[in-house]
């Protein structure tokens, strides 16, 4: 059963920033990593990823640069900025608190 991409809405940017925290990456690779981590249940369309990139670039959270890929094709890589790292830390903390609350509410803990 595939989960709706809506579940990620509001968290797409944090998820992408989380991936970029581990190293620079490009659109296709990020999409693939999300898909793999989602165990095939979560899949983001490219349009959603590129819209998020655009928004984050405008907000100064990430920066893009062109580089040769592993097989020689030119790729547009993204790197997280210092503001991006601060934003990510804040969102991660928010998520930790929210997930604990949701867990209590849903599981009745």
């Amino acid at each position: 059963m595939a989960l709706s991409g809506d579940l990620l809405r509001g968290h797409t940017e944090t998820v992408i920033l989380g991936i970029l925290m581990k190293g620079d990456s490009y659109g296709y690779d990020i999409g693939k990593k999300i898909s793999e981590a989602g165990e095939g249940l979560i899949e983001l369309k490219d349009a959603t990823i590129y819209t998020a990139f655009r928004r984050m670039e405008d907000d100064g959270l990430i920066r893009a640069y062109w580089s040769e890929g592993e097989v020689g094709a030119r790729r547009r890589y993204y790197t997280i900025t210092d503001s991006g790292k601060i934003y990510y830390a804040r969102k991660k903390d928010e998520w930790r608190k929210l997930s604990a609350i949701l867990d209590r509410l849903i599981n009745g803990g």
Partner: protein
Amino acid sequence: MEKRFKKYLDKYFLIYKSSQETADYREEVLATLNARAAECRARGMTDEGEIYAYCIDSLGDFPSTLREFGFKTRFFPDRPQFYLALAAFILLAVTAFLIAGFATHAWSKVWVIAVCGPLLAAGTAVCYEAKRLQGGKGGIIAARLAGYATSFLTAAIVFLIMLISVPGSAGKAWAAFPLAIIPALGADVLITLLNKRKGLLLRIIAFVLALFTMLYVGLAGAGAIPWHPYWILPILGAAAALGVLIAWFSLKSRRGSDN
């Protein structure tokens, strides 16, 4: 496959002004599509059509993303075919005006043809814009509908002008409507041709048949030419349509044998 991807992207990027930003984004999306196609093949997918469909589907709502990015749109299309088509339209109108004028010597009436030409050319431009702005299949339908609407609107304007400027001309002014079928079908042919859509042959034949038949009905109905012996015009139209059909298939078979 890359060629197909490029064609797909061009279809949507065409409406935006060329800039470093659009070029970067286009290249980025193309790289993603190529990478995904390569992965599909590595996974054992062999049907190229299936791979293409999967890759395009993975893009999601691509046209909406482009709109959301707020790239600047072109005011004028950059394809030379478009301007050639517009010039052809105006030339056709001027030629029709001169032919009708010299044939009937009714210069005070045939000027409407010269007015209709540029009006239709402008209408075609609007149709093209409708297609560009809406994009995709819906855009083509919008362009076609706009083409028909423009032609019949022009006919209605001509009809009203004649009613007002030539008292008692109602019995003849109706001829503007059958004549409007000609540019309407002509615009349809142009839209199909410019956008490389299917059904071009059928549209050309309909246009040729309408050109001769409606010209006959319109001009004879308006009293510009006698009904007899100009009944030969629809017959000539059928012969011309047959000629188009033969030329089309002989060209197709020649291309087939060349390949």
